[in-house]
């Protein structure tokens, strides 16, 4: 087996390029960007908003920026907000029982 991922390696082989959008990779894995690009969008947005998004994506191409933004939206989940809502739901549990589940 390769030693490329040994301790201290700056970036293991097989790791993803950090410039690559995780949302896009997830959208690709979910089959959301498999189809041909046939949906046409025509929208006016605030220049500052577009430029801020373009800096994040690393491209000024409207198609690239919009695709990245849509991928980020499409791959959102509600786990974090749900956990925040459940805050303390097990607060009244016997500490002895909780002690059995904490790693």
């Amino acid at each position: 087996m390769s030693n490329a991922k040994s301790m201290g390696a700056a970036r293991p082989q097989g790791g993803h390029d950090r410039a690559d959008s995780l949302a896009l990779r997830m959208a690709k894995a979910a089959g959301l960007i498999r189809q041909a690009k046939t949906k046409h969008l025509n929208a006016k947005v605030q220049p500052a908003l577009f430029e801020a998004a373009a800096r994040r994506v690393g491209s000024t191409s409207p198609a690239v920026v919009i695709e990245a933004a849509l991928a980020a939206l499409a791959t959102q989940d509600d786990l974090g907000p749900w956990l925040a809502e459940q805050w303390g739901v097990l607060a009244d549990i016997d500490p002895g029982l909780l002690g059995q589940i904490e790693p």
Partner: protein
Amino acid sequence: MDRLAYRDRAALPMLGTTRPRGPLLLDTNVFLNALTGRGPRVLQTLLANLPQSFVSAPTVAELSWTRGRLDPDHPQTAKVLGVIDETLSRIDPAKVLTPSAEQWQVAGERAGAAVRALAGGTRSFKIAAERHEMLNDALTAVVASDAAVGVVTQDADFDLFMQIDPGLNVLFY
């Protein structure tokens, strides 16, 4: 690399003073501290505003541990299991980072290095559970780093993994 050791907590990237960069992975202690209400409010605020949450496969295993471990005769077991089952069902399977064989190898080496640095000092690591916990933490650190996802945790062992892998992004609370 300098000898591994826990650094002063003030030198670590802390939730509340360090701005999250990019997507985040929730360590097991985040779930337990949220559900028991023992975490700091800054963690609750982060969770409430988190659009994406990644989880490592070891965390899924640690949460699932309850189903086999809890005393079935305890009057509160059913409630705990109900909450844990609901929590597991809320995790998007596409956001579970599962280690490859190569990542297991890397994690094993890093966990061993962390234990070697600490053994005989503040901790003994004489029981298997401690070694397993360190290995699970190392696995979480490796899959998060490779996916370019930051880890949210209260576990100081991630400080060691940050020193081993400068590419690992961690937010402590």
